[in-house]
C-alpha cells in the first residue's frame, strides 16, 4: 500500500508518559520526515483536533488506549469510524479479554495491541501496512 508521506501517527492515552516514550522511540523517522507524531491525553482533545486540522485521507493512523476517563477508547473508535472512516484505528489496552477485543472489532478497529505493547510488533505492523520505515 502506498501512503502519502509523511504518515501522521496519532496516539491517545491518558498516560502522558506513553506519549513521551513513543516520541523518543520514533525520534528518527520523525527527524527524517517520514512520520509526524501527535499525542493527545484525552479523546476529546483529539476529536477537537480532528475538527480543526486539514487532513489527507489515508495518511493518518490512530492508536488509542481504551480505559480513559470521560471518553473511552471505544467511544473514540466509534466516533472516528463514523466521521472519519478513512482513519485506521488500533486499540492499545491492558485489557486482554475476548469481549473487549470483539467489541473493538465490531466497532471497526483494524488491530488490537495488549499493553505492554511490544514495540517491534507495532513497528512491523506500521511498516507493512503503510510502507514507511521506522528504523
Amino acid at each position, binding site marked *: 500500500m502506498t501512503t502519502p508521506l509523511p504518515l501522521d501517527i496519532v496516539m491517545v492515552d491518558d498516560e502522558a508518559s506513553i506519549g513521551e516514550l513513543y516520541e523518543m522511540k520514533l*525520534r528518527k523517522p520523525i527527524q527524517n520526515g517520514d512520520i509526524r507524531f501527535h499525542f493527545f491525553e484525552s479523546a476529546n482533545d483529539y476529536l477537537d483536533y480532528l475538527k480543526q486540522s486539514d487532513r489527507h485521507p489515508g495518511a493518518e493512523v490512530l492508536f488509542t488506549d481504551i*480505559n480513559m476517563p470521560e471518553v473511552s477508547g*471505544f467511544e473514540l473508535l466509534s466516533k472516528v469510524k463514523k466521521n472519519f472512516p478513512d482513519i485506521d484505528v488500533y486499540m492499545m489496552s491492558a485489557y486482554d479479554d475476548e469481549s473487549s477485543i470483539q467489541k473493538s472489532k465490531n466497532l471497526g478497529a483494524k488491530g488490537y495491541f495488549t499493553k505492554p505493547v511490544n514495540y517491534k510488533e507495532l513497528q512491523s505492523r506500521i511498516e507493512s501496512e503503510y510502507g514507511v520505515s521506522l528504523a
Partner: protein
Amino acid sequence: MNGPAVNALEIIRDIYNVDQLLSGKEYIRELVKRLAQKLKVKFVMVGHDVEGKGTSVQTDYLFADGKFVDNVVYELEGTPCTKVLCGTRVNCYSAKVQDQFPNDQMLKDLEVESYMGAPFLHTNGGLLGLLVIMDDRPLEDLDLATAVVEFFAARIGAEYRRLDAEESLRRSNEDLEKLVDTRTKQLISQEKLATIGRITLGIAHELKNPLNIIINGTELLQDSDISEQDRARTQTMIHQHGLRANEIITSMLKQARQEVHTTEEWADVSRLLKHAFDVFFKSLNDIELKLKLIKKISITTEVKAQLFDVPAIERVFINVIDNAVYALAEKLQKNKSGYTPELQIELSFKNSRCQIRVRDNGIGIPSDQLKRVCDEFYTTKPPGDGIGLGLWVAKQNIEKNRGSLKIDSRENEYTEVVIELPAVRRDAEVEVSI
C-alpha cells in the same frame, strides 16, 4: 385444726409474709433472719454443696446471735450436715448434738446443743444445698421445727434454682451477644474485603500503567542509538513510575489492613472521591453500561477534611458509587433501548462543609424500603450480591467523622445519596495556618 399444726402454720405465715418486692438473695436473707426470730434459735445457716462432691459446704447466709456474719466453708466429715446431705428429709438432733459428733469443732465453738437440717434439691433430684437451724438449748417443739424447716428448705431451694436459671440465662445471653458481636465483626471485615474486591480490577489496571511504562522504557534504554538526553529522561520516567507502582500497592495494603484508627488525619476529599470513581470505573466489566453511561462528574478541587480512617471513607465512596452503578445496570438490563443511564457525582464546598452527591437514574428504591436501607443486614439484592452491610457501615463511618449520610429515591426514577462532612478548602487552611 389445733395444737402444733395451727402453730406451725402461723409461724410459717409469719415468716413467709415478707416484702413481696424482695427477690433472690435479698428474699432468702430476709427469710433466714425471720426463721431465727420466729423459731427463737441462735443460728440459721443456708449453704450449698461445694462442686457437688458432698465433701464440703460453702455457707451463703450465716445468721448468728441476731446478725449476719461472714460466710464460711467447712468440711462435712464428722458433722451432722453429712447426714443431711445424705438424705432428702429433715435430720434432727434435738439435744446433745456434740456428743454424737465429738470431732465437730464448730459445734463446740458455738456451744451448739440442738441441730436440725434439711436439704434442698435440684430439679433432677441431685443435691443443691441445705438449710440448718442450731441453738444452744435443746429444741422444744420438734414437730413445729420440722414442719417449718422442711417448708422453708423447699422454698429456699426454689429460689436457688430460680437464681441459677437466671444466671445461666444471663450467661447464655452474654455468650450470644459475644457471638453476634464476633460474627458481625467478621461480616464487616468481609464486607470491607468485598468492597476492595470490587476495585481489584481497577487497581490491577492502575498498576499496569506504570508497569507498562517501566517495561517500554527499559526496552527503549536497550536501543544503542538513543541520545544521552533521551536516555536520562527515560531513566527518570522509569524511576518515577516505579515509585508510582509502589504507592498503588501501599494504598491497597492500607485498605486491606485491619487496624483501628483513633487519630484524625488531613485527607484530600476531592482526590479520594475522584480516585474512588476512577478505580471503580476501571473495574467495571459491563462494557455496554460503560459505553452508554453519561457521566456528569463535577468535583471541586482542594477540599480537605480531618478524618478518622481515611481508607474507610474511600470505601464509603466506592460503596455508594457501586450501588448507583448497580441500580443503573439493573435498569439497563430491563430496558435495552430508550434508556440512557446517567451518573452524577458532585463535590461542592460551602460554609465549612463539603457535600458529596451521587445520583443515578437507575431502578430506584421503593418508598417502603427506603427507610430501612441503612439498617444492619438489610438488603434487597439477591444472595451473593450483598449481605446488607454496605450502607450501614458507610453511615457509621460518616457519622464517626461528624458527617451525615442521607438517601432519597423514587422507584424506577432515581436514587440520590448526599454525604456531608466538615471540611476546609486549601485556601482557608493556608489562612488558618498563617
